[in-house]
Every structure is written in structure tokens, then in C-alpha cells.
């Protein structure tokens, strides 16, 4: 009996030490909040910021490829110089993917779990929309990307083909629409508590999702059979039907906005295009883009938006001068064209430059000059950068102001810290409609939509400029557009139903969609042809650059970005190489993404595993 007592005692002791299963549940850091603690209304603005930042970087970089902008000639051998010169270089590829994955999408799974836990369906819908936007952007830029295995337990996620990503994004945007329509539990904070885009307006969100779906489905225009104009038109009926229901994000320039984001320490409130293009003085508009604005359809009537989209500056004479467009076809592109400009604001000091042939340039105080002895560059002062000052950079205002009071850089519609982000807007919807009907041969409907689109674009810009009215009335870049100028343009430049061309529709869409990556998607859909984009041409230096022709072979076109160097190509090397037959090839840049292929068979030529 004694023996049993002892055995019983042992069993008890063993039980005593193992029965407390929660004894081991101490693995949460008591000092740092973990991912399960973040509420839906704190995560949504975080995800919105990082999505927008990535989109801003894509906007600015693709605007160099589309020849909307160009880089300084002195910066030909930098990332922006390569982009502008059509030389595929993988320095292009990292930032967008990094901000989307590390900043934005890392939060997706936790956000969805939290939304479902608390019944925050509108937040969940918004989250699905952002995920769809993020992957759609990557599909358009990189072609393939880990999608089904991304953001999960795999440390070397497999890549998915563009078709799977595209269809996944469409189904996610449908899911977003469904969720946004679902009422939230009463205990859940209103969408407005965490929405920095639409101020919690669910109707705008739903319209935005339909607008995105229309945009994306329209990007399949090459695919006969798959291209479904009926569905697109149906989406357009639910997408923004006026500027008022468009998703236009308002940004702020605050002196206190200097803590910075976690990746680049850039400001959190400012327009993201500003962070990528407005913080430096290296970018200029091209003559092709400026030409569309100043001489649309060779009518010689200036677009009322030209003043707002091209940068301005003053010299000591206080005269406002608008930038000309730099010629991307000029042979001078090989010799530092366009050359950087310098403002001589040293009161009383004259700068003298002597060219090799003895020509002397005397630069009076209060004037601009190109600080080089190469006299062919001296005229490049007519080109201005998109630079904008900012309070959060320690400057007194957004306007870059010299000590003599001159405004040395005005910023533009889309590049100031306070510039709005036109995320999904009514004008774009109009142009999608115009394009569809034009291609169907219904010029009447197409023209009406085309005209609505132009008017809406002008109105939308004008309403955004309203914020500047009081203080900046003198700044031609910020002042209200005069109705006289609008009327002249609408009546004289845009033409009639009869002379409507695809080129006019696409160029007007390009202007309305300035500094957005959608323009690059559109150009690729039309293979950069001059029917859709009259006067457009591949930049001059491409033809002079062996390495550019190695990345994009002569006769091919710029169609995608390579996968991010080092980060993907070495840390996910095996899957990266399996993603596309040419993934590691020098000329990966010329291979069309799935949306840009007329058929799956065309896309399959690149794929190791054929797309079904």
C-alpha cells in the first residue's frame, strides 16, 4: 500500500508541474506593442500612406519613360537619366516594391484579421481595395511577382504570372465593393476615423473601386475576346460620375511633418509626387509634353492647364517665366542637355563665363545662367525644374523664394507638398468611355465623353487651386484658371465630333492623368504608336547607347521593369529565375507584361510554365 501512496505522490507532483499550460504563454514582448494590438483605424492610414508613396514613385519614374518629363543631361548616368533615355537599369525597380511590401502589404493579413474580429467591413473593403491596387501596380511594372505565396510563411515565395495576379486583383476589388456595401457593427469606429483618402465617404470608396475596375479591365484592350467593354461600361456607370465623387486626396505642408516615414524619412502629409520629383531640381518637362499643352492638335491655342502643369520662376526683374519643354529628340542630349540652371542672387556680383572660343557671358545679379563654359548650354535657362520648397524642409513656404523676394521655383499642379493626388477621378472615366466608343465607331458618344473629360479635368484642377487663391493669386502656377481661357480652348482647340481621333482622346487623357503611371500602361497598350500619341518618339540617346540597346533591343520597346536587384535577385534567386525565361536576361525590359499581350500564347513565350 505504501508503494502505491508514493506512486500517487509522484503522479501528483508531475501533474503539478505540467498542468499549467499558460505557464509558458509569456512570449510576448512586454515593451513593444505587437501586431495584434493595432486597431483598424490606425492601420488604414498607415497602409494608405505606403501605397500612395509607392504609387508616387511609380508615377514619377514612369513619367520619364513616357517622355512626359526628362532628366538633366548632366545626370544621364543616373537612374532618372537611364529612365529618360530608355536604358533599362535595375536601380529603377526597388523602391515601389519595397514600399508596397514592407510599408503597406505587411499589414494586410493582420488588418483583415482585425477587421473580421471586430466586424469592421468597410475597413476590410478598403484594405482589399488597397491590396488590389498594390498588386495591380506591380503586375503593370514587373510583370510577375510573388502573389499567392507572398506575405505568408514562405521565405522564398514563388512568383505568379501576370494573369493570376490580374485576376486576383479583379476578384479582390469585387470583394472590396461587396464589403464596402456591408454595414459595420455599431461598436466599430466609423470609416472616417481612419480614412485619409475619402474622409470616410463610403460612396466615394465604392465609386473608386468601380473606377479602378474599369481602368484595369480597359487595360486589356489588346486582348480580343477577353476585352469586355460591356462590363467596363457597367463599371463606369457606378464609378465616379462627377468630380464630386472622385477620390482626390488633399495633402498638407506642415512644418512639424519632419519625423518621416520608416523607410526614407520622407514627410507623411505631403503629396508623394513631391517626395520623388519636387524635392530635387533634376527634372524638366519635355517639348512633346509642353507641345500638347501649348499647341494641341496644331491649333495654336494654349491649354488653360498649361500654366498649372509646367513649372514657373521669377528672376530679379520679378517677371514670371514658364518653362519650355526640353527636346527629347535633340542631338544635344548626348552633351549635357538640358543643363542645370543657377540663380545669381549675389547682390552686386556679376558672374562671367568664358567659352572656349572666347565668347564671354556676363550674368547680372538677379538672373539665371548655366554654369558652364560650353556655350551651347547657355540657353538652357529656359527649362525649369519641378522643384518645390516645403515648410517641413525648414523653408518658409512652398515657394522657393530668393533673398531678393523672387520666386525661384513655383512647383506645379502635381508636385508641391500641398498638391492633390488624383487617385481615381471622373475625367479618367470619361476618357475610358470615349476610347471605348471611339474604337467601337460611335464617334458621337465618344466625343461627348471626350469633351466631358476635358472640361472635368479643367474643373477639377481649378477646384484644387481654390485653396491657393488668397495668398497666391499672383503666382500663375497657383492662380485660378480664367473662364475666357477655358472657353477659347474648349471652342477652338479640342475639335469636333467629326475630326475626333484616337490621338486626341489619348493625349487629352494623358494630360488629365499627368504624372500617373496609368499613362505608361496606356502607351504600352497602344505600342507607343503615333496614332494614339501623335509626335511621340523614342528619346534620342537610346539610339546612341549600346547598353540601352542591350536592355531593350533595337525595334523593341520599353515594356516592363526588371525585378528589384539584390533584394529579389539574390535573396529569392531560384524563384526569381523561374519566374520568367528572361528574368535574368539583359533585355528583360522589352518583354510585355500579361496585360500588354494580345494573347496568352504571346505571354507564354516568356513563361516557363504556360499560362492557362
Amino acid at each position, binding site marked *: 500500500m505504501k508503494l502505491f501512496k*508514493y506512486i500517487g505522490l*509522484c503522479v501528483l*507532483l*508531475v501533474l503539478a*508541474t*505540467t498542468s499549467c499550460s499558460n*505557464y*509558458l504563454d*509569456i*512570449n*510576448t*514582448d512586454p*515593451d*513593444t*506593442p*505587437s*501586431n*495584434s*494590438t*493595432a*486597431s483598424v*483605424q*490606425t*492601420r488604414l*492610414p*498607415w*497602409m*494608405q*500612406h*505606403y501605397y500612395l508613396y509607392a504609387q508616387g514613385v511609380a508615377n514619377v519614374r514612369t513619367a520619364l519613360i513616357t517622355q512626359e518629363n526628362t532628366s538633366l543631361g548632366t545626370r544621364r548616368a543616373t537612374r532618372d537619366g537611364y529612365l529618360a533615355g530608355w536604358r533599362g537599369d535595375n536601380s529603377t525597380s526597388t523602391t515601389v*516594391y*519595397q514600399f508596397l*511590401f*514592407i510599408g503597406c*502589404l*505587411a499589414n*494586410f493579413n*493582420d488588418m483583415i484579421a482585425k477587421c473580421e474580429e471586430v466586424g469592421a467591413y468597410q475597413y476590410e473593403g478598403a484594405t482589399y481595395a488597397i491590396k488590389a491596387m498594390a498588386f495591380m501596380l506591380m503586375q503593370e511594372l514587373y510583370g510577375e*511577382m510573388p502573389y499567392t505565396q*507572398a*506575405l*505568408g510563411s514562405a*521565405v*522564398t*515565395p514563388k512568383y505568379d504570372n501576370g494573369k493570376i495576379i490580374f485576376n486576383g486583383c479583379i476578384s479582390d476589388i469585387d470583394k472590396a465593393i461587396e464589403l464596402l456595401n456591408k454595414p459595420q457593427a455599431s461598436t466599430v469606429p466609423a470609416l472616417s*476615423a481612419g480614412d*485619409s483618402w475619402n474622409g470616410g465617404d463610403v460612396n466615394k470608396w465604392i465609386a473608386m473601386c468601380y473606377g479602378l475596375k474599369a481602368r484595369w479591365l480597359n487595360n486589356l484592350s489588346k486582348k480580343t475576346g477577353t476585352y469586355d467593354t460591356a462590363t467596363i461600361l457597367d463599371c463606369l456607370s457606378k464609378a465616379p460620375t462627377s468630380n464630386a465623387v472622385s477620390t482626390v486626396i488633399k495633402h*498638407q505642408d506642415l512644418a512639424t511633418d519632419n*519625423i518621416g*516615414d*520608416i523607410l526614407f524619412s520622407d514627410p*507623411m*502629409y505631403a503629396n508623394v509626387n513631391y517626395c520623388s520629383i519636387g524635392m530635387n531640381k533634376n527634372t524638366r518637362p519635355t517639348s512633346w509634353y509642353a507641345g500638347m499643352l501649348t499647341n494641341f492638335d496644331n491649333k495654336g491655342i494654349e491649354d488653360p492647364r498649361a500654366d498649372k502643369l509646367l513649372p514657373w520662376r521669377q528672376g530679379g526683374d520679378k517677371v514670371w517665366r514658364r518653362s519650355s519643354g526640353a527636346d527629347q529628340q535633340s542631338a544635344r542630349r548626348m552633351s549635357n542637355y538640358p543643363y542645370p540652371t543657377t540663380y545669381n542672387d549675389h547682390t552686386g556680383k556679376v558672374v562671367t563665363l568664358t567659352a572656349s572660343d572666347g565668347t564671354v557671358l556676363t550674368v547680372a545679379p538677379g538672373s539665371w545662367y548655366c554654369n558652364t563654359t560650353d556655350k551651347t548650354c547657355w540657353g538652357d535657362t529656359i527649362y525649369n525644374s519641378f522643384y518645390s520648397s516645403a515648410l517641413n524642409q525648414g523653408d518658409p513656404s512652398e515657394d522657393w523664394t530668393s533673398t531678393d523676394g523672387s520666386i525661384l521655383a513655383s512647383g506645379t499642379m502635381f508636385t508641391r507638398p500641398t498638391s492633390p493626388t488624383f487617385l481615381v477621378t471622373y475625367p479618367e472615366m470619361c476618357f475610358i468611355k470615349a476610347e471605348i466608343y471611339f474604337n467601337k465607331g460611335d464617334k458621337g458618344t465618344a466625343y461627348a465623353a471626350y469633351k466631358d473629360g476635358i472640361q472635368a479635368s479643367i474643373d477639377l484642377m481649378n477646384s484644387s487651386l481654390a485653396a491657393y487663391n488668397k495668398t497666391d493669386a499672383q503666382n500663375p502656377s497657383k492662380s485660378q484658371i480664367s473662364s475666357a481661357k477655358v472657353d477659347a480652348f474648349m471652342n477652338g482647340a479640342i475639335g469636333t465630333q467629326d475630326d475626333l481621333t484616337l490621338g486626341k482622346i489619348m493625349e487629352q487623357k494623358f494630360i488629365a492623368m499627368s504624372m500617373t503611371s496609368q499613362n505608361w500602361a496606356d502607351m504600352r497598350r497602344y505600342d507607343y504608336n503615333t496614332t494614339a500619341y501623335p509626335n511621340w518618339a523614342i528619346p534620342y540617346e537610346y539610339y546612341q547607347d549600346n547598353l540601352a540597346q542591350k536592355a531593350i533591343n533595337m525595334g523593341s520597346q520599353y515594356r516592363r521593369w526588371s525585378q528589384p536587384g539584390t*533584394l*529579389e535577385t539574390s*535573396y*529569392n*534567386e*531560384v*524563384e526569381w529565375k523561374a519566374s520568367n525565361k528572361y528574368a535574368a536576361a539583359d533585355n528583360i525590359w522589352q518583354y510585355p507584361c500579361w496585360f500588354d499581350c494580345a494573347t496568352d500564347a504571346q505571354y507564354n513565350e516568356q513563361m516557363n510554365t504556360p499560362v492557362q
Partner: protein
Amino acid sequence: MNKKWRYLLALIVLLGCFVPTTQVCAVEVVQSAHQSKSITGVVKTTSGEPVIGASILIQGTARGTITNVDGKFSLDIPQGTKLIISAVGYKKVELTIGKGNSYTVTMEEDTQTLGEVVVTAMGIKKEKKALGYSVQELKSDELMKVKTANPLNSLAGKIAGVTITQAGGAAGSGAEIILRGGTSLERDNQPLFVVDGIIYDNQTSVNGDSSFDGMMSTTTTNSNRVMDINPEDIESMSVLKGQAAAALYGSRASAGAIIITTKKGKEGSTQVSFSSKLNLVWANRLPEQQKTYKRGYYNASGDLQDYTTNSWGEAYGAKDKAYDNIGDFFKTGSSFDNSVSVSGGSKNGNFYLSASRFDQNGIIPTTDFDKTTFRFNGEQKYGKLTVGANIAYSQAHTTKSMTSAGLYGSGGNGTMTSVYTWAPSDDMTHYLNTDGTKYRMFAGKQDLADDVENPYWQVHKNSLKDDTERITGNIHVVYDIFDWWNISYRAGVDSYTTTNNTFIAPGGAVKIAWQNGMMSENEERFRYLSSNLMTNFKYKINDFDFNLMLGTSTEDWNTVINRRLGFNFASDFYSFANIEPANKSFQELHSRHRLVGVFGEFNASWKNMLYLGFTGRNDWSSTLPVKNRSYFYPAANVGFIFSELLPKNNILTYAKVRASVAGVGKDTNPSETNTYLWGVHTQLGGLTGLGNSWTRGNPYLKPERTKSYELGLETRFFNGRLGLDATYYSNKSYNQIISPRLSQTTGYIFCSVNAGDVRNKGIEVSLTGQPIKTRNLTWETTLNFSHNKGTVEKLINGVDILYVTDVQVGNAKAASFNNGKFMGISGSEWARTDKGQIILDKYGMPTWDGESTHYIGNREPKIQGGLNNSIQYKNWNLSFLLDFRLGGAVYNGTDYLLTNYGLSKRTLNRQTLTIKGVVNTGTTDTPVYQDQTFTFNAGESYDMGASTKTSGRSIIQDYWGTYYPRESSNFMTQVNWLRLRSVTLSYSCPQSLLTKLKYIKGCTFSVTGTNLLLLTNYKGLDPEASAAGSGTIGSSSVGFDYCGVPATAGMSFGVNLTF
């Protein structure tokens, strides 16, 4: 060495002080002796030789006698008394006094020491012959031969397969121990330490953080915490090298284990022991500087400039003095080491009480280390119940200097870097002006933050200190229910607080914010609790013996780190109270870890010939995800004494083969399964934003696993005069927990993942012999050597190199290579043709690819080992330990730095430089290589591609400073060494003298020399080096010699007294 004699004198005086007090302590246990009678006896060997000095002890008392030179003894004792007769090398004999008055005792030789009992995992004592794996134990007398403050150092060279790396010669600096190579790529590879059944923390904390107060592992030296033990308290250290031996420790066994047992009082009279030691140390080797050229440099036009700390200047003139800045900086260090213990016991109880004090002055001015310890061990029996407690308390203080790196991001420099690169043409002791203000060599020419801080300023004005207070202890209960079944329980605690203080005095060459002073304090509170229940069953039937043990343990670690920092003192008073609130910051970090284990062991033996053992352990760790936190480790071993089957012979006395297989592992660090958030960022519209940080928690993490196999052979020849013990082992550690950069499509940049295998294969051989054994002279010798090969494979794609330390010297870095060496060195290389010719640019300079990720060498030695000798002549003992190493790369980062500064002797030829190689005369795509030799003369100028010609002096200088280090292996040596690690001569007072001195039972004097001889092909400081100190994870920084505090050599004088 005048100073040393002064110390010796002081020691004698000190001894004098102790004598009267210790006399009081000595207590004789007096036994009543009824009806005593005189008996005589003689003790002989089986061959009839007398046994001299055999101890005759009356059982249950401390009374007795010893045999004389004829083996005879006499005693007055009553009839029926039991005598215990013992002598070294013989089996114990018991003798009961009957009616007779004269006795002859025959003692059997115990040459094989087969009955040797060793401590194995969980503190279980087993006969060594029953083990199927390798265990080596060092007893206190061996450990005390060359006593050091750090018990780890006593193991160096004595056990095959044990690598000890002392991290330099700074007072209080730690050592690293690795058994059979590291098994983890990014985790601690040092073995588990267990003291009296309780896990004993041995981390080397770098308290502070580079991002908080600039503290890094390369900033200064730190102790490893096993140093808190008083070495005198150690009865034995049992080294469980293999995973099979340590398997019962489960999650903590993959790096092996070291089981320390502290002393117990012995039955008999109370004994007082006292030992005192004076130790003098000096820098073993110092870096050599050229003293031909002074400070200065030549610019491209060949003009001499003096605004530099480099020594590329002109030659010393007749009147110029070259200072021995390095030699003058280091001084002779000294330490006093005193310890006293009182122990005793009766049949039912015993106790051991000790105190010690260690006081050391370092070889760097102002540095010191002191340590005070107390211990009480006691045990009492009540029938079948035994209860006991072991308690130790210690305090340790260190005053340190900076080493190589200085404080991260603070400007200034490490002390050692500055000492080694201070131009000999300048007097380094000139750090103050005559008015007491700071002397600045380049005052007015550069900002204070850009100065190189004078080492004397650093050690005299600034301070780096640490302070540790520790309590460890356990209580234990053993209940012998039946003679075949017992239960034991042990609860223990290991608790310490270690505080680091950094003080940067106003006026320092540091970043502007700290120029008016900075102080930081880092306090780490560590607490470990454990509870361990075991029950043991024994069963014997016919020729079979069975043993079953079952147990469970619960362990709980809790660490809290508090950091405080402040800068800009309001006045010349240095405290946090004298700093504005805006300039103060704090941090608090918690870390918690719990482990529950259930384990068991089953042993079976047959005829003392065949032994089988099985162990199993299941652990539940709090650090792993719930679904992976339970895991099982099995192990099995077999030992077969096949000599039992052989006929008795005089050649092969004993032979055993053993084999084992084991699976063990490691859990991970706390809080790695969760993903955490970035700090709060306000977003557009003033919304509060929170998002996941770029380090992903891994909710799928599994424990690291190690599978190991071990085969061994143990033989004794010629009745034990010669022994051979050989082991082959192979282990594979898989599911390595590493945190590499990842594909960002995971959503994260970093994540702990299970990936990669580390393989270790090796052999260990130990030869023991007694070449001489006569009545008066015995020579015992042990030669051991080992070889280990550590390799890495199956890392995730994209991760080809893992770096685990912030030690980067030039382009060289400690690195583990995928499909390559675990202990590799990565670095840069000159470009070479397929034929190995160096490709030069058109001006004659070697070209390179700009990468520093090339594999350039392996830090693991080919063979290392030791030869340990003990020669006993009458009362004299001479012991010496030689250790050796063959192969294994050491990167001489110190010489790299000296080369850069123009101070290395290799830069002495500055008149001409000849570079041979090939130049590509073709295109990049289709190269055509042509042999070419370029010669540059100091006095001429050459076209180097600049608009004007470049002076030869400047070219030669640039070659050494820029081009030469791009071939990282130029500073790497495959090191061989033979080192006289220690030599000790000791004299024990003869028994005849002691019997005259009433109270003194033992008295030994010793003189020890350490590191007196080092023969090596390595040209730098001591090649036993580890630039990031002792606590570095993964492949560590062993093999990187970079501006450390030089290793020391020393002499010590000691006395041990027993009362």
C-alpha cells in the same frame, strides 16, 4: 622586477597576520578511548614492498597515523576499532582490530582506476566504465595547479576537443569556451554550465546598445559570468563534450555541458584551508612599430605635410627621439588572491564554508578587477532523508579601458587603437598642457570631435566600469524510500545584477552633444529559477543490473535591462541630477523565458561488461510557437568492455568500445514568434498610424536540432601505465535559427527562419602514461589532441554568407559560408587571371572587383592539443602544460591598421616599390594580358592618370594604405604555435615536519609561470585572439586580432595551508 619582490614581502607579512587567527579556528575532534591497547602493523603491496605514507584512519574520526618508510605504523586503540587504510594508487582496505597486537595489511594496486566515478548529466554519478560516451573530469587538485580568476582558463590544453579563447589580457576580461566546434550559425555556441545541479549563467553581457549609448562588443572588454565562481570552491569539473553525454539537458545540450560540483565537508575533523597567491603579469607580446620614419605624409606633388596622425613622414634625424609609447603605456599588473575555507562533517552531516578575495591591477593604467566570494554548502541526514543547501554570494568590479572601436557614433577612438597607432615621433604622455588643460595636437585645425583621443586622457579622465552582484544557490532533498528507490528534489536560483557605467569627461573628442560630458548606466537584472524532481529505481537480477530514472524540471529566466543616459553637465559635478531633463533618456527592456522538461534514463548492464543506456527528454519552451513548443530528444549509448573476454595478460589490461547516438537541440530567443509594430507615426490628416515593423515574427519557428554520433575506444596497457582514449564524432545541426535578410515579398526585411545545416566532424585522442614510476619519482603525462571540421550547407537561396559580429577590419570579416566553412573569413582580393597573375591597371596598381565577400580563409585549426606533465620527486612536484596548434587562419587586423598608418615594419621600404603583374592590353570582353613590372622610386614622379604627375613617395604611401589591404589575405597567417601555457613547481612539507607542527596538516608552496614561452609563426600580438570578446554568437570573432589588450605572461607565488 624590484616591484615583484616588494609584493612577495607583502605576502609574507600577510601570512604572518593570518597565523594566529587561523589557529583559533582549528578544532580537534577528540574521541574517548576506552580500554586502549597498543598495536603495530605493516602495510605492504601484493609484491611485498612496503607502502610508505599510507593513511591509517580510525573510522568515524579524524584520528589516525601514517606509515613510515618501512611501511610500519603503531596506534593505541581499543579492540573492535575499524581502521581505514588508504594510499594513492591502491585500493582502500578496511581492518578491524581483533585480539592480536600485530597486523599485516596487503594493498592491491589500483592502477587501472577503473572504479573512477564521474559526474554526468543532471549531476548523476556514474562509473566511467559504464558510459557509452566521452566524459572527462578535472578534479580540484588539477584545477588548482595553475589557479586563475576564471575557472575556464584552467581547462585550456587539458582536454581534447575543448577550445578556450581568452579575449586578451585586460583585467577582468572573459574567455570563450567551445566544445567540438560550434553547432549554431547565429546562437551562442558555448556549453551549458551547471553548478551543483543548477544551471549557471555564463553570458558575456554587452550592456548598453550601439543605438543608445554607443556600446558595442568591440568597445571594451567584458567578463564571462562563470568568473563569479571562486575556483577554490570547485571539487570537480566534468566536461560533457558530446550531445549524447549532455542529452538529458535537452534544449540546452547541443553545445555540450560542463558540470561543476563544489566542495563538501568530509567526515572527520574540521579542516581549515588557506591559500594565498601573488601574481605578477606583463604584456606577452606588443605590436612592433617602425621607428625609421616620423609622423607626416607626402601629398601627390611630393610635398611633406604634417597635418596627419600617419607616419609616412621623413626619416628621424640625429636629434629626433622615437618614443616607446606602447611599451611605456603598459605596466606590470599584479593580483593578490586569498581564500580561506572551513569544512567538516560527521556521519550525518557536513558543511563547507569559504571566502575569497581577488584583487587585480591591470596592465593598463587605472584598470582593475576585484572579486569577493562567499559560499556555504551544507548537508544533513535524518534517517532516510537528506537535506542540503548550497549558497554562494559574489561581487565583482571592473574598471576598464576601451579597446578597438570606441563608442559607436561618438567620434573619438578606442584606447587600444590609439595606443598602437600613436606616432613614436610624438610623446603620447603629453596629453595635458602645463596649466592642466587638454593638449590638442591639431588645435585650431580641426573640430574637437575629429581628434584622436589621447589614450592617457581616456584612461585618466573617462571611465568605463562594471559592477556585478550575484547570489546563486539551491536547496535539495533526497529521500531513500527503499534501497532500490529514491526521490530527490532540487530548487535553485541564480540571480545577479550587473551594472555598467560609462563616463565621458567634458572636453572629450566625441560628438558635439557629448563634449560637455556624458554618462550612461546600464543595469541588467538577471534572475533564473529552477525546480527539479527526480526519482531513481535500481534492480539487480543475476548478471543484470537495471536502473531507471524519471524526472521533471521547470526553469524560468527573467531579465530586465534598464538604461539611463544623460549628457551636458550643468556644472563640474557629474551626476544625472546635474543634467537638464531634455538631455536625459531611458530605455527599459524585458525578456522572459520558461522551459518545462520531462526526462528519463534507463540503464542496463550485464556482467560489468556490456552497458546500455537510453535517455529521452521532452521539452516545452515558452519561446517557440504553441504548436512547435513541445519536442522530444532521444539518445542511446552502449559501452562494451571487450577486454573482459580476453585472457588475463600483462599487455592489454583494459579495452572498451563505446558508441552513442543522440538528438538534442536549442529553442530560440524570447519574443521572436510575434511581429511588433513601429513606433506611432502621425499620418495624413492627423490620423494616428500604426504598422508592422520590418522584422517579422515567425509563428512557424521550430527548435534547432542536432543529431550526433560518437564512437570511442578506451584502452589501458601494461597495468595502466599507458592509456589511449580515442573518439570520433559527427554531428549535424539542422533547422538552424537564423535571421538573414529576406525577399521583401514576405512583407518584411528580416525574419528568424529555420534554414541551414552545420556539420561538425572530428577526432579526439588522449594518451596517458606513466613513463617513470619508482618509489621517489613519478612522472605522469597526458597528451591530447583533436581535430574538428565545421561546415555549413543548405542555407536558403540568396544567403551565401552569414556575418555574426560587428568586427570588420579592413575588408575582412568573420563569416560562415554556405556550402563552405563555418569559421570562415570573408574579404577582398586583387583581381587575378586564370593563371593567378595579379591584374594591374595601366598605371601599375593592382585592380579588384570591389567585393569583400570572397572566401579567404578558415579560422579553425587543423589540430590543437596539449601535453600535460606532472613529475613528483619526493615532496617536490613539477607540472608543466604545453599546448599547441597547427593551422587555422588568424587575421592580423592590428597590423592592417599599422600598415595604414605607415607604422607597420612591412612599410619600411619607402624608397622603391616594385609591382609585378599583368596588364590588360585588349578589351574588357576579350582581354589580352601582358606581363609587366612597374617600379616606383620615392624621388621621382609618375603618370597616374591625374593632370599632373604624382610623386613616387605618394604612390608608395597609397599602395600600402589603399591597394595592399585590398588583398585581405596579406594580413592573414596560417598559425602554428607551441606554448608553455604553465609551469609550476611546488613543494609540500613532509609529513614528518607536519606531525611536529601541531595544527598544520598540510602545507604547500608553489611558484608558477604562465605563458612564459610562445613559439609561433604569427607576427602580431598573441594569436589566441577574439576581437569582439567572449560572448559572440555563431562562429564568433575568434581568429581576429584587432587592437585588443595584449595577452599576458606572468609569475605567481602561492602558499596553501591546511589546518
